[in-house]
């Protein structure tokens, strides 16, 4: 059954009431339409007072558009955001600089989220059995369930309001059971903490103090709770401002290369089973001198470590480095690793004296973290036994992303009644009775907690476009409050009034909503003692020897995460930060494994396990562990998705409760078919062009000769007089030493500059439109460098002199400008651009987007027509806005007033923009720093974008 109002059906229904069109009628209608067209921007304002973020910190660009603070939760962990609103229309997301989980930065998901608001696939109405229904009917039908066995399935939550509602429902409905499900849950981490310390805990790191970091299968630079903060701290620990600066060192052991792996100084590619063994090996070395550690534990570790013996030298060197930096190291492990590995890592951190310095433990902000309610098994059992009177699935998409062996899609029908609150007519909407459209975050009031527990508020930027409801509103229905109450605003306000007390509540409310967070609400950290005996028992239970078969790793996708972003065109078009694969997912294999299997790129393999099989194309991946195959979850979506339907392959079909992350028993067969993949970059080899494109050096060599880039990068002689024409001269510096390649800048640029999406075919044909891309270059076995590449704004720009109509030219303040109206599209400029950053509108890419999708466009930036060239403008709209603003205030533009979209999003502050004619500006300092170089310097283009060489900090013991 379909649950949203099916367009053809609705069209037919409308047809019956359509009157005969007469000339007079037509003129009436058209006149009214034109007259009212101007009003349409006004009618979507939220009906409750929302409060602009008025105390703007200096680094926030002030302007006509207003910014509102809100927060976005993924798997219950909130990140504070500022959302830019143009006349009530949210268009762009920035990080909230005050928020402890953002510090002003954002990742690709935060940046891409605004596009989902205007997703044409969003469900438009409440439905019952596929027929449109009224919210009031839904509320009335669910107000009296006190006697029923109601099972609620929610996403993990940290929301104080929601926790309160859950408590009240448990009182009101004695038969209510709550379950929390996230496909990429943190259950294993919590279980690991429970194993070590007796209770589920979250680990909080302080990487700013860390000198040595060991990440075991943990992509902390691009995912996980608080990753934006970790990335910032990690970058601060290796940002070299001079010869004498110190630099942290990162070791990574993982299967598929991740963003964190590309940032590593030493990386070991291991099959999933070997990762467990390597951790045991490292722990054995680290714990050897630990007085508390029982000798039996060491013996158990030694046995568990045996499959990783070949890496003994690596492990020994890393262990020595960690031990040499006691109290200044961090060992961190990914959520996919078994609980015992987490517990081993906790023991290591304790043994290394890192606890209370770089590592602290605190109760998770997530409600009932680590408890049985977070295991879907309970619900599955109840459904199978027919003990469920009513099933309320509020948020998430469990029918799609639950374990394949749990077969939730069939079981949902066993409940005697069911409702699903979801964004669109997706997989889960199919088997349920009632469907309620879910309000987008930017349409919702709510709260949540950051990774450190800080209470964060979410306020709507726009009234629900399609009458969407929040989880809290639906929960309130079960309390009998649905029909008459005022919705999530009232729920939130009432709850916090109760917490805060009526006195001074209005001021408290106003300041919290305005700032988006509540101060001093972080959860305090706790001291912990490890239970060595339990740890030993767990280690002994670790599987001793791995299978020799090809091991398959299933992981959350860097772009679509668990599948929730699979209908987001920006994120699908974004090339994977490591493999540069856009749109689909693929089976990642190392070159050696591919030779062994006799397959090539784009060959389709059939993977089958327990009677379920999928067909997936192969892609060679740099840094992939031999004997492993990595496949991203979150693709192959079904349901009414305008963009993401059938993009990629649904890897959940292979994911079972017993082998959720790694599996050595999946059968592979070659199909002989081919599937064309949309790869954004085809060549990763530098072809010996290091000194032209990407300078890199080891810390040791850098200290010997800090100006090593300058010797090979002197400005070429010129006959031209390059006298600046204006007092302000714009320029940029990009620090390749701290850029991780996470690609947040790419999506930020796309959102800010109305960069069109070209689709799989477009990317495959080499027509992607990204103004800013992140190039990846291989250097040896271990390294895959990232280099953000955007218009370099050359002072002697090769594009300018070849344009026959002067459509691209130079501004007095040093911008290479693109005059779209004048461009006739010869593309000569692109041919002559050595950086190939110019993008051409081969078609009219914005012709077929719906009026709804149009709402996301930034009104400050021209939407380009077909046949014209476009490229990075250094966010000229932001420059001019700041200049006008400064002019109104009769002051000069200050350093930091203008931040380009990429700079603002960057989690590691690798990108710095500013006035290079201002000797005091940070960008000037960086451009004259000793690692500075220009890409393709010898061509004499004199680029305004300069880079800082990447410095690696290899362990001398391992550097051969």
């Amino acid at each position, binding site marked *: 059954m379909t649950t949203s109002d099916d367009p053809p059906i609705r069209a037919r229904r409308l047809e019956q009431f359509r009157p005969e069109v007469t000339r007079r009628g037509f003129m009436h209608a058209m006149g009214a339409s034109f007259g009212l067209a101007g009003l349409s921007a006004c009618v979507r304002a939220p009906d409750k007072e929302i409060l602009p973020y008025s105390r703007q910190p200096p680094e926030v660009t002030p302007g006509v558009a207003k910014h509102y603070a809100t927060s976005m939760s993924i798997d219950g962990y909130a990140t504070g955001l500022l959302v830019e609103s143009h006349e009530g229309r949210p268009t762009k997301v920035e990080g909230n600089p005050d928020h402890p989980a953002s510090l002003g930065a954002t990742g690709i998901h935060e940046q891409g989220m605004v596009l989902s608001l205007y997703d044409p696939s969003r469900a438009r109405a409440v439905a019952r059995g596929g027929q449109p229904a009224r919210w009031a009917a839904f509320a009335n039908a669910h107000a009296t369930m006190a006697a029923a066995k109601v099972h609620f399935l929610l996403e993990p939550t940290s929301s104080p309001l929601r926790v309160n509602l859950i408590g009240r429902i448990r009182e009101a409905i004695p038969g209510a059971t709550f379950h929390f499900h996230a496909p990429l849950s943190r259950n294993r981490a919590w279980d690991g903490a429970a194993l070590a310390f007796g209770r589920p805990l979250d680990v909080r790191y302080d990487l700013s103090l860390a000198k040595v970091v060991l990440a075991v299968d943990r992509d902390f630079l691009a995912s996980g709770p608080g990753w934006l903060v970790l990335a910032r701290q990690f970058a601060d620990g290796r940002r070299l401002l001079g010869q004498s600066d110190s630099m942290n060192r990162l070791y990574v052991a993982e299967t598929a290369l991740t963003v964190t792996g590309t940032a590593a100084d030493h990386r070991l590619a291991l099959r999933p089973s070997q990762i467990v063994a390597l951790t045991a090996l490292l722990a054995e070395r680290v714990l050897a001198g630990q007085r508390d550690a029982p000798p039996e534990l060491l013996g158990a570790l030694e046995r568990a470590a045996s499959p990783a013996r070949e890496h003994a030298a690596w492990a020994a060197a890393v262990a020595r480095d960690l031990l040499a930096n006691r109290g200044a190291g961090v060992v961190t492990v990914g959520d996919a690793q078994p609980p015992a590995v987490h517990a081993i890592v906790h023991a290591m951190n304790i043994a290394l004296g890192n606890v209370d310095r770089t590592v602290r433990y605190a109760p998770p902000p997530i409600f009932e973290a680590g408890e049985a309610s977070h295991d879907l098994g309970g619900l599955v059992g109840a459904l199978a036994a027919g003990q469920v009177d009513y099933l309320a699935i509020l948020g998430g998409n469990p029918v799609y992303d639950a374990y394949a062996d749990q077969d939730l899609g069939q079981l949902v029908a066993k409940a005697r009644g069911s409702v699903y609150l979801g964004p669109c007519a997706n997989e889960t909407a199919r088997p349920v009775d009632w469907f309620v459209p879910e309000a987008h975050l930017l349409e919702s009031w709510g709260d949540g907690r950051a990774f450190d527990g800080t209470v964060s508020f979410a306020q709507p930027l726009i009234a629900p476009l399609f009458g969407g409801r929040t989880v809290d509103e639906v929960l309130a229905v079960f309390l009998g409050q649905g029909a008459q109450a005022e919705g999530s605003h009232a729920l939130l306000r009432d709850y916090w009034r109760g917490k805060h007390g009526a006195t001074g509540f209005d001021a408290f409310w106003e300041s919290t909503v305005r700032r988006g967070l509540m101060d001093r609400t972080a959860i305090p950290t706790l001291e912990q003692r490890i239970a060595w005996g339990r740890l030993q028992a767990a280690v002994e239970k670790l599987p001793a020897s791995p299978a020799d078969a090809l091991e398959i790793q299933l992981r959350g996708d860097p772009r679509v995460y668990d599948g929730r972003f699979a209908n987001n065109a920006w994120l699908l078009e974004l090339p994977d930060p490591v493999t540069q694969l856009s749109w689909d997912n693929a089976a990642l294999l190392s070159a050696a494994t591919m030779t062994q299997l006799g397959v090539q790129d784009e060959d389709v393999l059939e993977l089958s396990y327990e009677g379920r099989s999928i067909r997936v194309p192969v892609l060679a991946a740099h840094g992939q562990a031999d004997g492993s195959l990595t496949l991203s979850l979150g693709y192959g979506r079904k349901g009414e998705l305008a963009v993401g339907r059938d993009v990629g392959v649904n890897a959940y079909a292979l994911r079972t409760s017993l082998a959720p992350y790694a599996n050595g028993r999946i059968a592979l067969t070659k199909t002989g078919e081919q599937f064309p993949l949309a790869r954004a*970059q085809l060549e990763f080899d530098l*072809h010996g*062009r290091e000194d032209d494109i990407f300078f890199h050096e080891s810390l040791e060599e850098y200290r010997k000769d800090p100006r090593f880039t300058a010797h090979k990068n002197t400005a070429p002689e010129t006959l031209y007089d390059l006298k600046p024409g204006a007092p302000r001269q714009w320029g940029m510096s990009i620090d390749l030493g701290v850029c991780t390649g996470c690609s947040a800048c790419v999506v930020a640029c796309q959102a800010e500059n109305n960069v069109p999406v070209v689709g799989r075919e477009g990317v495959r044909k080499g*027509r992607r439109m990204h103004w800013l891309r992140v190039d990846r270059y291989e250097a040896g076995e271990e390294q895959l460098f990232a*280099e953000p590449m955007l218009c370099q704004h050359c002072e002697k720009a090769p594009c300018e002199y070849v344009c026959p109509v002067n459509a691209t030219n130079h501004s007095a303040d040093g911008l290479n400008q693109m005059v779209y109206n004048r461009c006739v599209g010869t593309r000569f400029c692109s*041919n002559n651009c050595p950086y190939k950053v110019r993008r051409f*509108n081969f078609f009219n890419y914005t012709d077929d987007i719906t009026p709804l999708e149009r709402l996301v466009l930034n009104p400050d930036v021209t939407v380009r027509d077909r*046949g014209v060239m476009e490229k990075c403008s250094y966010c000229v709209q932001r420059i001019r806005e700041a200049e006008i603003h400064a002019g109104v205030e009769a002051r000069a533009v200050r350093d930091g007033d203008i931040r380009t979209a990429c700079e603002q999003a960057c989690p590691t502050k690798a990108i710095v923009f500013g006035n290079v004619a201002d000797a005091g500006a940070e960008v000037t300092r960086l451009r004259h720093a000793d690692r500075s170089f220009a890409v393709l310097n010898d061509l004499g283009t004199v680029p305004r974008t300069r880079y800082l060489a990447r410095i690696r900090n290899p362990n001398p013991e391992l550097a051969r």
Partner: protein
Amino acid sequence: MTAAVPVQGIREDDRPDVVLIGRPGDRELTAQLVGAVLSPPPWINKVLLVTGFVTLILFAAVTYTVLTGIGVWGNNIPVAWAFAITNFVWWIGIGHAGTFISAFLLLLEQKWRTSINRFAEAMTLFAVVQAGLFPVLHLGRPWFFYWLIPYPSTMDVWPQFRSSLPWDVVAVSTYFTVSLLFWYLGCIPDLATVRDMAPEKWRRRVYGFFALGWRGTARTWSRYRIAYGILGGLATPLVISVHSIVSMDFAIAQLPGWHSIIFPPYFVAGALFSGFAMVLTLLIPIRRLYRLENVITTAHLDLMAKMILLTGSIVAYSYTVEIFLAWYSGDVFERWMHLHSRIQGPLAATFWIVVFCNVLTPQVLWFKRWRTSPRLLFVVTIFVQLGMWMERFMLIVTSEAQDFLPSSWRTYRPSAIDMTILFGTMGFFLFLFFLLIKYVPFIPIAELKETRFKIEEETRGGPVMGP
């Protein structure tokens, strides 16, 4: 009164230095050459039907492209120019031999040019028509092509003269204009002849209109000679300048493989190379079909084959110099382009086709026997044209495909529309060419008579009066 009028004195083993066989009288010549127009062979209508149909397909493909966007082609970033510009350079190069024959050789007083000059000049015109399609069509917004022309815009904006593209517009349009005038001026006396001889009234009217009232008086002949000489003088430098400017489209860029100072002479030689090949490709079958062996003799074939050999050698030398200088420069990008990318890269096949067609094939022309064999010559010219198209494609596409940053490297595949447009222009070209063959005396009658007269003068050692 058909093309197959027997003419005395044709023998297969004619001496190859004879540019007019036998001593046909004025009447005979007129009958033979006007006959081709007044009673064209019946097959020509079928040829026109087929080529006309191909032309319609071309127009459909062009319309589709303009309505949809050039995304329907295979172009991408980095390969932003591909088929369109390749076709442009190829067609415009083909045109060059026509002007070379009609103008250059006129100034050099080469008698052998007479019988083939109109033919060659018309080929120039039609090739430039094909070439002219592409610079407009390849624009992202072709409806604004006139912005490349320096016209007094009310907005006070001018083209950007540092770019070679506005020069291109000027060069090509000048070339077309001068070629058209020069060709048309040459036609006038013969159009008058057709007017005078045509039995049908409509023909007399139409040819009369285009003959501009030509009467053949001594005064008109005198004015005519002066005008023809001036236009010949004007057209001659264009042979050099047009393709030099076209080569600047590449030479002024800094792309490895484009940024090369030898491009202007290299392109001009290449243009003549392909142009002479095209003249021969068209001439050899027409000569046979219309039994024109008496006016287009083995000597013509021999001389043009020699030109192909000469220009082909210049082209081969240019290839060598390019590769040598890339190596000698030590520049990492140039070296990659010439020593790896072109020779071994994903499009290496084009390089080896070029070497085979443009360097190896013309070597057979060192031998007189083969130079004078129409069949072999025909095969060689086909190879040369394939080779020259491939050369332009290789120069343009391989350079773009693998330039400075390896991250943006990408190869190119033409789309069906690309192929349709390429073959469509060939159809269009042949369509125009056969229209000419059908309606215009394609061997200059008056000039041929004059040449015959001069030859007789030379052989008898003094002035001769009439036949």
